[in-house]
């Protein structure tokens, strides 16, 4: 209804007949007052709504709105005072029930009253800025009933007492509780907060403060967390049953603070049951609980968990990689690393929600301790070697991939990837040349992985080795096809032609080959150089193997699988029964250390020595003498005589490899410096160092001192010059 129309009524109102009666207002109000009483007394049945509405309508229309409104306030207030007294009089547990009953009554009455006074609500109240009937009824209920001196504290205490009893395991009337709390919420959020919530939170803080103190003294960490979790669930449930949803965050904050945050350190470090204990014993449930509870604590709850886990992993890892006992078995060493990684991967996935920050912490821990042991790159390569030689035999393709992926993961942690490459090349060479690799596919798969990880450069030489192997096969086929007839019954020869540079070969003195072999070798040489002009072939006699047919004293026939050196030694005994060390050395010209090792494997093996040494002993001395062991026996026809060769590098060898790595790094560092200076032209020392490290860290971690030396060398060779004014500045000389 628009204001324009209302105005029209106002103008015409004076015509109305009821205006004549001077007592009209008083009479009409009495009717309404009586009706309100009847409504509160549940006697509304039979009252005419139309009559009451019409009376209220007319009162407002005839400018008695004020009388109607103030009459309503007075009547309702007096009714509520009576109600309040009856509530106050209720004894013990009946108090809440009485309050609830009266509240429901009041609500219903209020709605009826509002309905019959609707015209006042619609017109008089907005124009005079008074409180609408419904709100007025709630305010009066609040002021007269809830805030009556006797009820206010009693209500609060009763509610808190019920919560307390429920926390102690008693069953309470949740329906009644919900109804009363709903009443407080209906009266306005400030009533709910001031008359209940605020006290509820205080009391809860005290309760949980005390309880947590008690628990922490008597429970182990796992039990404590279970209890805390249960309390949190209970409070969440409580809110959903009978509190304002907005209280959820507040009350859970209280529990979190009192039960978790205040005891975080103690919980994490608790002796025999804290975080470390859970990690050691793979207690996924407890760890998951700890994670979920600590995550709730805003101020770094997880940080503590993560830090403690990190430092524990670091300690464990450090112990593992620095334990001298572990250094004895590289394969076991790497397996233990993998086991450790698996263990924590599982914990993070099962208990820590695959939290990225925890994964990062785990990765950085591994990166930290793996690099504490300078031999880690070598050992990882040895582990691969072991797997590719025998460990992966008969394993399905998928499982091979799993193992290789794990190895790659460890590889990623390595700072000195170039050292790994060095060893990998050595080990791969041995595998390829000895034909000992389990699966060509697995070999290639790992190369592909390394390539993806480190780029083409890293693997080009490794790939070159595979190419050489393939080419050699073709060459040998060609050799036998063209010279097959000519070779007759001379020893059969298999040659692998290795490209210098791709293979980890060292220029070594060629030993004297037996004449029979030498002949075939020379034939091969001329065949090969005939098809490949301009090349040079040199024999790597330290790397080959030979199969020898041997007949011993009592006629026992065997085929001996030996190294080239061993062959050279054994062949001497075709023409002599007894040879001294000196004679062997002279005849073969095998380097002393290799010769000793070779003789050791032939003459000093515990069971089946091919040669006999005089005097008997473990070590080879320069004045020893050797003869064929006629009593040699073996169940097998084919006998493999392994060289006494340390799988793992000995200390001096290790030093040597190190040195070669350092040498190889120099040109790489120089190349990086030149690349950087070419694009930047002028740069200061610290920035060059930083850039070089950045460029090379995917392969190794360059030492700043070495970088400085390389810069100096480049200055000497006039690639760079120092700035004349600022000595720290370098210039690129084109």
């Amino acid at each position, binding site marked *: *209804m628009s204001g324009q*129309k*209302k105005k*029209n*009524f106002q103008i*015409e109102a004076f015509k109305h007949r009821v205006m004549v009666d001077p007592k009209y207002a008083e009479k009409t109000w009495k009717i309404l007052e009586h009706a309100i009483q009847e*409504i509160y007394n*549940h006697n*509304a*049945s*039979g*009252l*005419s*709504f*139309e009559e009451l*509405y*019409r009376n209220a*309508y007319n009162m407002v229309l005839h400018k008695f709105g004020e009388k109607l409104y103030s009459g309503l306030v007075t009547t309702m207030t007096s009714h509520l005072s009576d109600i309040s007294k009856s509530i106050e009089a209720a004894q013990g547990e009946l108090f809440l029930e009485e309050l609830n009953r009266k509240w429901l009554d009041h609500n*219903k*009455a209020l*709605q*009826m009253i509002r*309905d*019959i006074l*609707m*015209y006042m609500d*619609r017109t008089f109240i907005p124009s005079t800025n008074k409180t609408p009937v419904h709100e007025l009824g709630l305010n009066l209920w609040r002021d007269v009933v809830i805030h009556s001196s006797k009820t206010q504290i009693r209500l609060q205490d009763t509610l808190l007492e019920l919560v307390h009893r429920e926390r102690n395991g008693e069953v309470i009337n949740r329906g009644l509780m919900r109804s009363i709390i709903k009443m407080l919420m209906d009266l306005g959020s400030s009533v709910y907060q001031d008359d209940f919530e605020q006290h509820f939170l205080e009391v809860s803080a005290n309760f949980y403060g005390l309880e947590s103190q008690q628990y922490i003294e008597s429970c182990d960490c796992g039990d404590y967390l279970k209890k805390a979790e249960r309390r949190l669930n209970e409070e969440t449930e409580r809110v959903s049953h009978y509190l304002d949803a907005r209280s959820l965050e507040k009350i859970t904050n209280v529990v979190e603070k009192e039960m978790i945050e205040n005891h975080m350190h103690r919980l994490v470090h608790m002796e025999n049951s804290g975080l470390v204990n859970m990690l050691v014993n793979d207690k996924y449930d407890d760890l998951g609980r700890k994670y979920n509870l600590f995550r709730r604590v805003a101020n770094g709850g997880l940080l503590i968990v993560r830090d403690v886990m990190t430092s524990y992993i670091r300690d464990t890892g450090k112990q593992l990689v620095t334990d001298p006992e572990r250094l004895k078995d590289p394969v076991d060493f790497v397996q233990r690393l993998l086991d450790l990684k698996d263990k924590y991967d599982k914990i993070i996935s099962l208990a820590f929600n695959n939290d990225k920050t925890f994964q990062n912490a785990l990765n950085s821990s591994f990166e930290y301790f793996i690099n504490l042991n300078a031999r880690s790159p070598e050992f990882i390569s040895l582990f691969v070697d072991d797997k590719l030689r025998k460990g992966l035999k008969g394993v399905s393709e998928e499982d091979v991939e799993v193992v290789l992926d794990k190895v790659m993961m460890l590889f990623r942690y390595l700072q000195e990837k170039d050292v790994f490459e060095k060893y990998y090349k050595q080990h791969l060479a041995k595998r390829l040349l000895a034909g000992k690799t389990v699966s060509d596919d697995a070999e290639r798969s790992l190369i592909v992985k390394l390539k993806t990880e480190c780029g083409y450069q890293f693997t080009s030489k490794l790939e070159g080795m595979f190419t050489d192997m393939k080419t050699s096969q073709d060459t040998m086929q060609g050799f036998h096809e063209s010279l097959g007839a000519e070779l007759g019954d001379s020893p059969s020869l298999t040659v692998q032609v290795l490209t210098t540079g791709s293979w980890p070969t060292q220029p070594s003195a060629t030993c004297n080959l037996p004449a029979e072999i030498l002949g075939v070798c020379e034939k091969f040489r001329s065949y090969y150089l005939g098809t490949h002009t301009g090349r040079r072939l040199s024999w790597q006699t330290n790397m080959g193997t030979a199969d020898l047919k041997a007949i011993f004293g009592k006629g026992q026939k065997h085929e001996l699988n030996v190294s080239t050196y061993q062959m050279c030694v054994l062949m001497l005994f075709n023409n002599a029964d007894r040879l001294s060390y000196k004679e062997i050395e002279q005849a073969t010209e095998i380097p002393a250390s290799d010769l000793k090792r070779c003789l050791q494997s032939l003459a000093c093996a515990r069971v089946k020595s091919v040669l006999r040494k005089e005097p008997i002993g473990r070590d080879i001395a320069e004045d020893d003498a050797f003869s064929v062991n006629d009593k040699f026996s073996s169940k097998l026809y084919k006998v493999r005589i392994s060289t006494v060769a340390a799988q793992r590098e000995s200390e001096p060898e290790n030093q040597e490899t190190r040195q070669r790595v350092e040498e190889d790094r120099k040109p790489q560092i120089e190349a990086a410096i030149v690349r950087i200076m070419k694009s930047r032209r002028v740069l200061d020392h610290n920035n060059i160092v930083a850039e070089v490290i950045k460029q090379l860290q995917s392969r190794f971690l360059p030492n700043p001192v070495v970088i400085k030396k390389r810069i100096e060398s480049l200055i000497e060779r006039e690639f760079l010059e120092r700035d004349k004014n600022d000595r720290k500045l370098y210039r690129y000389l084109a």
Partner: protein
Amino acid sequence: MKKEDMVKLISAEGFEFVIDKDAAMVSQTIYNMLTSPGSFAETQHGEVTFPEISTTILEKICNGKETEFPIEPELTLELMMAANYLHT
């Protein structure tokens, strides 16, 4: 139509109009009369008496729920008052 779905509106002169309850409840006042909690006489009997609304006007109001119709100028004021009372 069922009896419960209908409501009887009685004019000042005692004329009775039986109309669809939903149509009648377009008036907020009649809506409250028929739905207010407790049991007012109107809710109990399903009828409302309007001692201050004439038959002519009440008829207009009942029809008005259905279609538009011409209103005689002399009735306009009375009709508007009734509309205000009924809060339609």
